[in-house]
């Protein structure tokens, strides 16, 4: 690791947090697109959060086609590929708050309902069950004063930590940044390139294991390049 880019910085040490998530039912389920739209209008925002990104911490196959539960159901349950494509491109980071995100989702659904002669429906066993999550956040005790110090640890961070710092952060901070990027911003201009690269990682299209690997590699490569 290089010493040249790893000068001690004044920024607050990076405190690694960890989290775990458990799913609960909301008792609400939809069998057709109209029901789905009606429920989406009134469901607590935490349920929308769960289906857009909380799913990353749940047992699931790394969905090869669609990146959120709504899009996936539109395709597998309603067999409506057009809707699935549109829903999969509603990006949570594009909205200033989650109510605006909900409105956009509803807008996409209403538009699709207007276009359909018949309301798309799913078989009884493929109804959409709206879930929500409880999340426990705790301090891992790990602290890093300099970005370079993170390098050997990143590949072994828990998926809970990756979720908290890379996914959840975009939802809980005003800037919609991941925590690594936000911290690097306070560490000095020499980390600008690393921040840019981190911001270029699509957070919603990979498993947490993949994201961990990508983040670890970005840090590793950045400091190797700096050393050269």
């Amino acid at each position: 690791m290089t010493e040249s880019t790893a000068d001690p910085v004044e920024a607050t040490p990076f405190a690694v947090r960890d989290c775990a998530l458990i799913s609960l039912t909301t008792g609400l389920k939809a069998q057709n697109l109209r029901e789905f739209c009606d429920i989406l209008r009134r469901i607590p925002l935490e349920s929308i959060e769960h289906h857009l990104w909380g799913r990353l911490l749940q047992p699931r196959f790394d969905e090869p086609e669609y990146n959120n539960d709504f899009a996936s159901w539109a395709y597998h349950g309603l067999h409506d590929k057009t809707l699935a494509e549109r829903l999969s491109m509603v990006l949570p980071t594009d909205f200033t708050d989650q109510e605006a995100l909900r409105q956009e989702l509803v807008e996409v659904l209403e538009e699709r309902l207007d276009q359909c002669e018949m309301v798309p429906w799913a078989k009884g066993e493929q109804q959409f069950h709206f879930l929500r999550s409880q999340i426990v956040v705790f301090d891992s005790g790990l602290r890093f004063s300099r970005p370079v110090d993170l390098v050997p640890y990143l590949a072994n961070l828990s998926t809970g930590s990756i979720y908290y710092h890379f996914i959840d952060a975009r939802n809980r901070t005003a800037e919609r940044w991941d925590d690594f990027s936000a911290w690097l911003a306070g560490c000095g201009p020499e980390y600008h390139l690393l921040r840019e690269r981190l911001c270029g990682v699509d957070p919603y299209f990979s498993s947490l294991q993949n994201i961990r690997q990508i983040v670890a590699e970005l840090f590793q490569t950045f400091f190797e390049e700096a050393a050269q």
Partner: protein
Amino acid sequence: MSPADKNGSLLLDRYAEVTGREVIHHLQQLAAPLKGAKVVHVNSTREGGGVAEILQKLIPLKRALGIDASWEVINGSPAFYECTKGFHNGLQGMGSPIPKQLLAEYEKVNAANAEELRSTLEEADFVVIHDPQPAPLLSHCPERRGRWLWRCHIDASHPYRPVWKYLRQWVIPYDASIFSIPQFAQPLPHPQYIVAPSIDPLSEKNRDLPLEELQTVRERFKLDPDLPMMLQVSRYDRFKDPLGVVQACQLAGKLTPLQLVLAGGGASDDPEGEAVLAEVRQAAAGDSRIQVLLLPADAHHTINALQRTADIVLQKSIREGFGLTVAEAMWKGKPVIGGDTGGIRLQIFDHYTGFLVRTPEGAALRIRYLLHRRELLKEMGQRAQRFVGENFLITRHLREYLTMLLGLQSGTQGRMELGL
């Protein structure tokens, strides 16, 4: 360090070898606020079936994390088990009215068991009651101080209404219930958690085996080394559709030579098993390529070797709470052809980690499909193994249990921040 602590630490080290140290560290941190908490699990059988298998592993792990976990088993009469088998069938939608005298026996057995267990249960911080058998225990513990959870391992998505109506009265007073997948949940006036079961990678049934041991099993059961082997491991239960598996293999075998092993045991709380076994034996009679094995409840090593020997594993259930045998086979790198039902859908991602089928014909088709595409068979198996490693090991199960207990302890609905 006390001997118990040392054993616990060694146990965690062994899991860390499979899951990575970070997974264990994560569990330790999550468990810290629950240290010393008394958690009692109650079910109706010590051996046989997925629930007992999970508890055999979950309890020592919880203890290793500093939780005072224990496991109690209720005792019942033949009439009690006949009644609870009726509940099981009824919750899975294959119902018939349960005679009043059986319901009376069910309540009587629970009352008698409550006399034995009351002080343990009333003192506990958390009580987890598994399935309908011990559900009425809560009503016999008026001085309870902890949180009570009802854990339903059964596919209750389309219950026979009279059975659910009867059971519901016992479940309503619980603080929360737990279902394996959202589809199984029923309207109840308390929080309903979703926790999928899991397998234990270190158990006798799932640990790695040397090749010589697989050869021993081939010889023991006189398996033909030149024929691909199909396998279904499950109790002889109509919902597991062993007759459908025989039919599927006979259909596929007309064009693609193969052999089938059906390996099952009995659970002490399942009185119907013998009748189903007799039907299966009759269906397979005269077909030398089909072996119907009745294995003892502790034949874990044999099952492990059979799963590792098989080319394709089937779990052609028509109803299934979760189907741990699916995850077991996938963990061993086998593609699974499973019934398109219940928790099997959570494990098999159709065409990626195996196939979901609805009929014996569908199973036959996919057997032939895979046997003619050996590279795909291998690829699917590898994907399946990776998927189980990331999602269905007992460490994930434990993480969700701990999160749930913390949620119940704090009474918080959404986000909890511990010590921040």
